[in-house]
């Protein structure tokens, strides 16, 4: 594909051979003239930066010549915006890292990669992640409960969380495997509202009915009242049904006496509903229904409960009940409870609701994924889906035990974060999935699918300024290509800002990438140096132990060092010299500055006082400086000129014969160097050289006499 600029300003991607996948996105760039050149590059995150250059024009007043436009690709997730994705990304770091370290310590203990209790660790991980996926909190429930409020919500459900929990139920939670059908009932209760976007749902019907509730005079005369109740009953929302039954007009005090029998029937059904036996450990606090952990206990209670329903169904009271709506509505509900397929089919809106009602009232003992899959097929046939929802594809994939389909579904619907993290769930209990996902594949360039998806997610993290710091966690868990990409990522970060630079170096330290941090510090050093922050530059170059570079910048630095003792500007250098620290640290050519400073200090003392001791010390520093090969040649003459007073010391000669000879040799070297092309003449008075020569000669004579 290559972009083509056309006259009207629209960018049209084209593929050459076929035209069927062509998509045109007009860009509003506002350039008056035709476009002559287009440049494309990646910007932050999913944004594409398009630079448009107009054809050059002769006159100045024809508008802008170029425009840069950022194009955001993909609409993103409609449920979760970018900032919320980042919150999820931050929160999933700790659970992911913990799980990886547990896996590593377990595999260090034994050779086998499959552990019996591994799923418990994954379950912990899954719960931690799941707690992050909660949508925005809704306003807290009012303190005074609204008697007419049927459906209550604590949080806005998200498809992301629904998908995650569905995978947790099927792949991880081994403990609840026996209660899998009941888990699905709970899952649907939490997330039925999500399906409202694509089809009619029981939740949607309930909400509509609740909204109309204020306009209804006699509730039991409204056919929707009975319809909604059977629907809610069919998917096991017992609390809601009982609460709605109690809204029945026969409960009103002024009517109780007239409708005693009718009220008795309503209450009998309400009691039966609230006593429904459930095959599950326990339900959430306050939920209706009686829970049984063991199958025999449940079977006993189940049979008893059904016989009670049958008994009520056959009771003669129905004939005496003169309210037809109530009679039919209640008996319809009894049929739902007895598992009448026809009634269940009418009560539910789409196949998952029908599926769940089958578990509740017809086949509570369904076990094994295969039989669950067959049942799902049957329900899909009975209720042919009108549209597809992002969760149904995933559900069918899970039930069909097709890991590839599951991966493809979650990747398409929920993106790289989901795949990178859900892979842990898929592999937690199944060796087959483990092999499928962890096998290195030739067609993926020798990496496994797990690594591929982690790398993809790490790329997403790396592309944003706020999340790149967590990408290393994922990259280091990729055995084959992770480290290479991590090095790339670290090199790519800007060195401009100290905080960012230090955070980058800290990551290098954590992963023991000393060679990278050293290079980054080198880059930072040169950057600061170039921008006039000499101290900062020297600091970073010193940290990176780059003596080469230090030597080179030393030459530039000396050009601006004060050239004479009287030069006040040398005071500024104090701070830099302090920064260089002790001599044990690499300072390259800058080492000279240290000795120079020591020499200047002792010289100052000589000028302020007259102590011979101070003078001797100064001479010591001078000799050290002149002997040191790192002392630049151009400083030799100024140094000697500064020391004239020492050379002409009145009381006694301060330099020995050999020392004087050394200095004379240096002078000789200098006069030779003067012949070379690039010699720079120091800025000294014209008679400086001769006065130094004279002083040295005098000193030599006095020293010889002394010795």
């Amino acid at each position, binding site marked *: 594909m290559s972009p083509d600029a056309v006259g009207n300003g629209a960018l049209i991607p084209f593929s050459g051979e076929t035209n069927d996948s062509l998509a045109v996105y007009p860009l509003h760039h506002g350039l008056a003239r035709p476009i002559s050149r287009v440049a494309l590059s990646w910007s932050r995150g999913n944004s594409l930066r398009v630079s448009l250059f107009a054809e050059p024009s002769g006159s100045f007043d024809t508008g802008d010549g170029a425009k840069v436009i950022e194009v955001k690709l993909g609409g993103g997730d409609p449920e979760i915006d970018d900032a*919320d994705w980042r919150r999820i990304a*931050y929160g999933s770091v700790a659970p992911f890292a913990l799980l990886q370290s547990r896996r590593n310590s377990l595999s260090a203990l034994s050779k086998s990669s499959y552990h019996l209790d591994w799923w418990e660790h994954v379950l912990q991980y899954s719960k931690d992640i799941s707690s992050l996926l909660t949508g925005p909190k809704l306003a807290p429930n009012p303190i005074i409960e609204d008697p007419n409020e049927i459906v209550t919500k604590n949080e806005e459900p998200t498809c992301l969380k629904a998908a995650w929990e569905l995978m947790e139920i099927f792949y991880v939670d081994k403990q609840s495997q026996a209660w899998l059908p009941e888990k699905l009932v709970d899952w649907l209760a939490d997330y039925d509202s999500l399906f409202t976007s694509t089809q009619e749902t029981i939740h949607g019907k309930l909400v509509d009915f609740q909204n109309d509730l204020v306009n209804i005079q006699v509730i039991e005369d409204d056919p929707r009242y009975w319809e909604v109740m059977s629907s809610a009953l069919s998917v096991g929302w017992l609390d809601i049904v009982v609460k709605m039954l109690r809204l029945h007009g026969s409960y009103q005090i002024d009517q109780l006496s007239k409708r005693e029998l009718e009220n008795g029937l309503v209450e009998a059904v309400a009691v039966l509903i609230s006593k429904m036996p459930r095959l599950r450990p326990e339900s959430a606090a306050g939920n209706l229904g009686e829970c049984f952990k063991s199958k025999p206990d449940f079977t006993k209670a189940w049979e008893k409960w059904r016989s009670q329903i049958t008994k009520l169904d056959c009771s003669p009271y129905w004939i005496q009940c003169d309210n037809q709506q109530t009679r039919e509505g209640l008996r319809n509900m009894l049929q739902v409870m007895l598992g009448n397929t026809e009634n269940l089919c009418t009560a539910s809106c789409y196949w998952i609701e029908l599926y769940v009602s089958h578990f509740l009232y017809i086949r509570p003992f369904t076990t094994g994924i295969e039989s669950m899959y067959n049942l799902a097929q049957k329900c899909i046939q009975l209720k042919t889906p009108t549209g597809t929802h992002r969760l149904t594809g995933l559900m069918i994939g899970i039930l069909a035990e097709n890991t590839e389909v599951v991966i493809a579904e979650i990747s398409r619907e929920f993106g790289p974060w989901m795949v990178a993290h859900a892979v842990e769930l898929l592999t937690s209990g199944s060796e087959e999935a483990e092999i499928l996902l962890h096998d290195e594949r030739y067609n993926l360039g020798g990496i496994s699918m797990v690594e591929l998806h982690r790398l993809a997610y790490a790329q997403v993290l790396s592309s944003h300024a706020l999340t790149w710091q967590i990408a290393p966690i994922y990259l280091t868990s990729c055995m084959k290509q992770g480290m290479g990409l991590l090095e790339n990522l670290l090199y790519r970060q800007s060195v401009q800002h100290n905080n960012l630079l230090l955070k980058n170096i800290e990551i290098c330290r954590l992963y023991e990438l000393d060679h990278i941090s050293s290079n980054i510090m080198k880059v930072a050093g040169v950057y600061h140096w170039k921008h006039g922050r000499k*101290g900062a530059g020297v600091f970073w170059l010193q940290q990176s132990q780059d003596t080469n570079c230090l030597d080179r910048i030393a030459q530039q630095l000396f050009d601006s060092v004060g050239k004479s003792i009287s030069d006040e500007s040398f005071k500024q250098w104090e701070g830099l010299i302090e920064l260089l620290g002790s001599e044990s640290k690499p300072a390259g050519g800058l080492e000279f500055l240290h000795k120079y400073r020591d020499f200047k200090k002792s010289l100052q003392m000589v000028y302020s006082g007259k102590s011979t001791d101070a003078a001797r010390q100064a001479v010591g520093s001078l000799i050290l400086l002149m002997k040191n090969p790192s002392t630049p040649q151009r400083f030799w003459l100024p140094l000697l000129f500064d020391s004239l007073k020492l050379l002409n010391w009145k009381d006694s000669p301060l330099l020995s014969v050999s020392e004087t000879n050394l200095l004379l040799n240096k002078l000789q070297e200098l006069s030779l160097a003067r012949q070379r092309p690039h010699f720079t003449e120091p800025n000294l008075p014209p008679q400086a050289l001769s006065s130094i020569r004279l002083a040295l000669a005098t000193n030599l004579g006095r020293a010889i006499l002394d010795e």
Partner: protein
Amino acid sequence: MAATANSETSQIHRFHQYKYVDAVRWLPVLSAFNRFAVLATSDFDSNLSFIEIHSFKPNPLSFDFQSSWTSPSPISSLKASQFLQNSIIAATTSSGSLHFLFADSTDATLQSEVSVPENELHSVSETCIDLMDGGVECVTVGDDGKVNLVTVGNSNLNYRRLFDSGGLVSYTAVKWASPVEFATGGYGFGLHWWDQRKPGGPVSQFKGNWDKNLNSGIVHSIDIHPSRKHTCLAGGSLGTVLAWDLRWQQQPIILSGTGAGDGAGNSAVQSISESEVWEVQYDRCIKSNTSSTRILPAMICSEDGILGVIEQGEEPIELLAEPCAINSFDIDQHNPLDVICSLEWESVAILTRQ
């Protein structure tokens, strides 16, 4: 190992901000009922930076947005203080401008703003400021090596340059010691002492032969206790926290740090962190009745996610251990049990100690 504070002794509340939090401060206010925090935030999606005021209520818990001011570029340094009936917020930006915001002391509404444009005080560089307690004097330093003094009035401000190192020395931290003295920190754990009465450069430089055993680093934060103006507390790279007593210049007291090596007297130093100590403040909450020769307890926050208290010769106490960096914190002046900190992962945490 550092001792971890019992969760019963403190309550931690986290508030996700959905944008990067550059710095946090408590706003000193007169009202006893309202608590306000100042946040410097950057929204990377819209490329806008703000100074925001949030009101904090512990019961029922809330951290509500009050008002905000849009900054021309991200905030690099933020300080808050009180001046007469106003709360005053001073901030420097990454483009080198300096801004003063005045907020009402009772309801914290932002009332007015005065500023110095970029390139007047500092060229584009990283800067640090300190606002004098209860005063209107502000000192700004930058890694361009400039030291400025800014005096702010109600609608005007005056500023003058105290020093310019020409980039030979970069400054990364500053703190007032008295109305005429302040301390600066920089690269190589360099600390300088300044006196406005003696212009032309720092009056004293922190030096000594100890650096042979200490890996070099950068000072990120300085604090000076009003009752002990001769001691300068500094925190920086490699988990280093040190106290520099002007009276014993050659011997810094190392309170924490991995770079400390096994130098004489420092062998017993425990390190609370191994990475950058981003901020250090004397912990006003602990009433230490130890002798005056000991350094007062100090609180730090670090790149490796530690918020803790260190005391000379004691085991450090961890108040918070986060999976991400804690970039700044502030202890409430009026209620020193409350600490607010900004976390790398776009959130703010408020810690209430019992």
